[in-house]
């Protein structure tokens, strides 16, 4: 049953699936887009691939982009895969699965798109976006910075339009963030250079002091011991704070540092009137140098981290725009990215796995240009597909146009070619979309009559709608339903109610609204009702011996009691009996017409034997009785005598009756019957008597033959 239903709806859903998204219509139709793109008219996927390969060979473009294109075409228009998966609300494009949310929501979006009028806002918005593209395309030259800044400002204007969906604002913010991070990085660069300068000074001081200690250590070692050179920690302490603040890159700090540098000799200890340097002060100077080195490293790390963070954030935004099918914005963001980050930062660090699924080779370097390329590819395909939609529409191939439009809408929902599709055409396709959706729902309900009408209407609108296939499938389902019902009726007639029920269920499963089902159900109800009534009627008439009533309603009773194991055979026997009675009645009527009253009466008597209580027979007999009273009296008397065992008297009466009507079969058969019985009695009696006495009596009679 299910297979039959599937066959019935297959043709319809092959087309209608674009409304439901459960079939392979989209991937099956996708090669057409590939064919359009590769300037080939063929519609098959293999032909598309062949055309693309041929074109590449002719152009000699065996580079990676061309191979990518070929691979993309193959993946995107793979007829063995489903583009739409309504169960998890995803759509596949170029082998990648887009999550479009609830399919019901997506359907609503598509219907809204079809019903959406064109607005001036759309034109303004498209103009703004085009202006952004124009500004970003002239990055070369001195005006590059101004153009980029203007484009960035236009993004804020573009984000005010509904169709933008906030994508422009996200890009603008990302650009602003990148610029801010760049400023921070520049500040860190200044700090780094200052720390470098301080480090150099500290290195010089440490080296000088070290040399001085080494020089003086050898010549005045004894003086130093005798003078009891002492360590003056206050001097070092006075200088240390100022040295430790070199991490601060403000001008004040620099001003504080200069005296220290200029007073380098004061950093040494005056011993014996000559400048000297102690090991303790040298220790502190070395520590200050180490601290400066650490700060410098920290600044370098901070600068590096800030740059990486900005790059990753921007790349994340670009990948998100691509995955959201905001291909225009993806291109805009990529342009900004390229302007902000230099060539060494073009390799994609985030979303590589997602983007790699769009590309044919896993070992390819995934860059921002890859995303740009894929986005342009999607935009080009959308443009080509929309041309195909318009061409199909112009040819009256509305079903094909609707299919192509929906496929294109899945990918290019936010692209201008889709948004610019004419309102009038969208309205026509929306009507077709609703009709097909309604037909699908009706087919789900198996309301084949309504589907038939609707399909006929669709066929008038769309030349490429396969009306005949749908109609034939409907007819097949209807015929199968009716045949199953016939089988059920036959099974019910033979009392096989289990098979009848199965047949009815099958018929209802195939076509629940089958009119014959209603008739069958009503008939069955009547039959059940009549069956219960008929049983009562039959039993009552049978009990009263009113076989005539049963015979008169034999047709209804025959149907109702056909499956009655007890009453059925009884009814059959009664019908046969009354049929014979009817023959006797007809025969009697004819005999009366021939003035043969005795024969007529005998016919009625035979009928009466079959139905003693039959009113018709008894009435005829009563009518005829006066004419055959004597004969009837003898026959009746004979029957009574016969019933009472007086065989001889009965024989006498039968002979008397036969005297009145010599041709009487009643008398003849009665005489034969009673004679036999009488002789049997006599034989029994003779055997019972005393045999010798009988023998003697016989001998006596035999001895007197002459006297007799």
């Amino acid at each position, binding site marked *: 049953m299910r297979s039959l239903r599937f066959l019935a709806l297959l043709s319809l859903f092959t087309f209608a699936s674009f409304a439901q998204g459960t079939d392979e219509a989209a991937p099956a139709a996708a090669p057409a887009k590939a064919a359009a793109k590769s300037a080939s008219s063929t519609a098959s996927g293999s032909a598309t691939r062949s055309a693309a390969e041929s074109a590449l060979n002719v152009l000699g473009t065996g580079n990676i982009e061309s191979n990518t294109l070929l691979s993309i075409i193959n993946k995107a228009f793979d007829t063995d895969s489903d583009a739409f998966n309504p169960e998890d609300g995803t759509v596949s494009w170029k082998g990648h699965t887009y999550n479009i949310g609830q399919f019901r929501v997506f359907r609503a979006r598509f219907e809204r798109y079809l019903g959406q009028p064109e607005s001036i806002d759309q034109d303004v918005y498209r103009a703004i976006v085009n202006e952004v593209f124009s500004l970003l395309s002239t990055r070369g030259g001195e005006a590059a910075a101004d153009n980029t800044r203007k484009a960035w400002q236009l993004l804020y204007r573009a984000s005010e339009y509904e169709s933008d969906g906030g994508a422009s604002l996200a890009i603008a913010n990302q650009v602003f963030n990148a610029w801010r991070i760049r400023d921070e990085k520049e500040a860190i660069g200044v700090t780094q250079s200052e720390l470098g300068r301080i480090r150099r000074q500290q290195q010089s001081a440490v080296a000088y002091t070290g040399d001085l200690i080494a020089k003086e250590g050898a010549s005045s070692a004894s003086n130093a011991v005798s003078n009891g050179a002492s360590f003056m920690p206050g001097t070092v302490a006075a200088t240390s704070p100022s040295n430790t603040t070199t991490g601060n890159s403000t001008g004040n700090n620099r001003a504080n540092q200069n005296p220290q540098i200029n007073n380098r000799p004061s950093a040494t200890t005056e011993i014996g009137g000559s400048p000297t340097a102690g090991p303790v002060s040298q220790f502190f100077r070395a520590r200050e140098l180490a601290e400066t080195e650490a700060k410098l490293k920290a600044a370098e790390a901070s600068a590096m981290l800030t740059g990486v963070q900005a790059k990753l954030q921007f790349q994340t935004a670009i990948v998100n725009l691509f995955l959201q099918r905001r291909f225009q914005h993806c291109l805009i963001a990529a342009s900004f990215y390229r302007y902000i980050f230099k060539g060494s930062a073009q390799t994609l660090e985030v979303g590589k796995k997602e983007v790699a699924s769009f590309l044919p080779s896993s070992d390819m370097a995934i860059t921002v240009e890859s995303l740009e390329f894929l986005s342009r590819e999607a935009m080009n395909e959308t443009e080509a597909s929309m041309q195909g939609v318009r061409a199909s529409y112009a040819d009256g191939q509305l079903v094909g146009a609707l299919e192509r439009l929906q496929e294109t809408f899945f990918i290019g929902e936010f692209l201008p070619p889709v948004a610019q599709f004419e309102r009038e055409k969208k309205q026509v396709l929306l009507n077709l979309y609703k009709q097909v959706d309604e037909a699908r729902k009706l087919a789900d309900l198996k309301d084949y009559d309504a589907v038939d009408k609707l399909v006929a209407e669709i066929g008038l609108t769309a030349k490429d709608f396969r009306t005949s296939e749908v109609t034939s499938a409907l007819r097949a389902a209807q015929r199968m339903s009716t045949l199953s019902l016939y089988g059920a009726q036959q099974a019910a007639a033979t009392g096989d109610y289990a098979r009848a029920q199965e047949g009815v269920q099958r018929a209802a499963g195939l076509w629940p609204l089958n009119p014959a089902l209603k008739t069958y159900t009503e008939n069955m109800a009547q039959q059940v009702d009549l069956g219960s009534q008929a049983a009562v009627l039959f039993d009552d008439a049978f009990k009263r011996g009113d076989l005539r009533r049963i015979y008169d309603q034999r047709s209804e009773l025959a149907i109702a009691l056909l499956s009655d194991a007890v009453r059925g055979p009884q009814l059959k026997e009664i019908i046969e009996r009354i049929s014979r009675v009817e023959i006797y009645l007809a025969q009697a009527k004819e005999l009366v017409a021939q003035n043969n009253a005795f024969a007529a009466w005998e016919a009625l008597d035979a009928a009466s034997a079959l139905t003693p209580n039959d009113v018709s027979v008894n009435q005829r007999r009563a009518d005829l009785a006066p004419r055959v009273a004597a004969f009837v009296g003898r026959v009746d008397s004979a029957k009574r*005598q016969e019933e009472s*065992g*007086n*065989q*001889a*008297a009965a*024989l*006498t*009466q039968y*002979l*008397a009756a*036969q*005297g009145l009507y010599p041709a009487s079969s009643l008398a003849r058969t009665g*005489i*034969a019957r009673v*004679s*036999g019985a*009488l*002789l*049997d009695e*006599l*034989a029994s009696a*003779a055997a019972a008597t005393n045999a010798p006495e*009988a023998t003697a*009596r*016989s001998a006596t*009679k*035999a001895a007197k*033959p002459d*006297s*007799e």
Partner: protein
Amino acid sequence: MRRYPFHAALRPLVYCLSLSLALFAAGCARQTGEPFPVAAYQNAPDNLQGNRYTLDAEIDAQLEWREGTGRLIAVRPLGTEPARLPVFIADSLGANLMVAQRYRLELTVRRGGLLYVNALRKL
């Protein structure tokens, strides 16, 4: 010489006549039975059970025969209303009966109205 009276001379003749009459009377023994009441029998045969009658009748048809027992014969009474009566003639009587033969039947009305022929003589 002794003289014999006249009636003495007729005495042998009287003896002969008496013997002849006796013999004749013996040969017509069933003539002495009452004639069979046909109508009464047909209306109520039970009322005649046990009676003996004489019936002159013509053989109409043989209804049934059982070897060793006898036969049922339909006879038409003579001198009465047209009727047909069944009589039983035992085989022991050894009668040779044919249709249309006329007999004088000495019969008894037995249980059930059976007309049992005790003796018969062709007329």
